[in-house]
């Protein structure tokens, strides 16, 4: 039953039509919220008592680090569905999300490095968070690399799906193991259990930035996925009609 539902909901033409309608709204809300969040955080939020203006990089660093991990979990979820129910669209989603995830992870690494120099006194430390993020970056690279070596796209999707499931299982182990190994990074700003230890006029723009980043991801994913669908289904009639090519 789940399979039937997945196949119906995940039919590429249906998704394409549906996304055409939602795309403008997604675009507007992503740009708006991200714009407000970033300019609020970078220009108007108060300076920190200890770090001064340097801390502002957190408005980019924190959301991109969170996104890097969220996107990986999203990919593994898609991968799981693809392996179990062979839903074609989930494979395409996985493939479209990978480059975005790797970019956010890279952005988190670069901004973290820029932040580290003035505060810690070094560009890079072999600290738990940094190391596990770096490994996450490598895992993304392995997934993307594997996809590119398999010519048949559907097969490539499934292969990457399998590997992403392994990634999901092993990432907590990596996190935990590098934690034991050594530690320097400050504890998370966001926690579920306690109220933020950040002053509200700094915290609010951060939340806005985070929501903005998620929306931005949704926007990029939709655009990527639409391209992927068109490319894979280019021989189908609905694509030909859409593009005005006579069949």
């Amino acid at each position, binding site marked *: 039953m789940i399979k039937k539902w997945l196949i119906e909901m995940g039919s590429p033409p249906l998704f394409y039509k549906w996304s055409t309608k939602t795309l403008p709204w997604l675009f507007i809300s992503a740009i708006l919220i991200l714009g407000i969040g970033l300019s609020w955080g970078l220009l108007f939020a108060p300076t920190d008592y200890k770090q001064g203006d340097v801390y502002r990089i957190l408005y980019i660093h924190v959301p991109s680090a969170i996104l890097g991990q969220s996107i990986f979990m999203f990919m593994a979820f898609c991968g799981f569905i693809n392996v179990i129910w*062979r839903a074609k669209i989930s494979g395409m989603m996985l493939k479209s999300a990978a480059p975005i995830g790797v970019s956010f992870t890279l952005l988190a690494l670069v901004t973290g490095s820029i932040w580290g120099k003035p505060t810690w006194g070094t560009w890079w430390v072999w600290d738990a968070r940094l190391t596990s993020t770096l490994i996450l970056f490598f895992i993304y690279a392995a997934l993307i690399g594997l996809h590119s070596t398999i010519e*048949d*796209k559907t097969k490539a999707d499934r292969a990457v799906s399998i590997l992403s499931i392994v990634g999901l299982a092993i990432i907590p182990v990596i996190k935990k193991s590098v934690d034991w190994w050594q530690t320097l990074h400050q504890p998370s700003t966001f926690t579920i259990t306690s109220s933020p230890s950040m002053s509200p006029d700094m915290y609010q723009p951060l939340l806005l930035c985070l929501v903005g980043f998620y929306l931005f991801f949704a926007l990029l994913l939709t655009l990527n996925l639409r391209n992927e669908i068109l490319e894979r*289904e280019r*021989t*189908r009639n609905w694509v030909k009609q859409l593009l005005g090519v006579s069949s």
Partner: protein
Amino acid sequence: MLPNLKVENLSCVRSDKSIFDDVSFDVLPGHNIEIIGSNGSGKTTLLRTLLGLITQDRGEIVWLDDAGKYHNYRTFECLYQGHQLGIKNLLTVFENLNITKHAKGMSQEDIYKHLERVGLSNVNELASNISVGQRKRIAMAKWLLKEFKIYFIDEPFSALDDTATLLIEKLIKELNVKGCSFVITGHRPSGIEATRVEI
């Protein structure tokens, strides 16, 4: 007599290309099916689909169990022989037959008998040193290890000399008498008695 395997309207589509479409046949005990098609027409894919290595896009494959009921999963062990014959180069001719699951509990004499039956005498030669034709004979000897209800053989008649061709036909006929069926593929109809299915 009930067919051991029923195939109904089987279709397979890969990357928007139909590999085979609407294939139907029944495999009755002691009867053969010959799937005829040119290169790249999906004969191997069809065999693999029947055995569950690939999932079909449409259609049914049902198997008979001992109680006379049909199921959409395989209920008995079959023999499959693909293009690659499943022969290990670093084992001798004898070992290739002896170290298999189906030869369990079989005496050495039995193995030698089967090898002799397919005309192999160089039993202690490494499989890497023997000719293609002789490798096919090792594969044939494996048919004799156990009586399977259905044998799935991919292109048994390719690259064979006349004596080997005659031998296969003879073996198939013998096994047919015992109630075994063959599902084989080929470019053109062979000399065996079979229902032909063109794809």
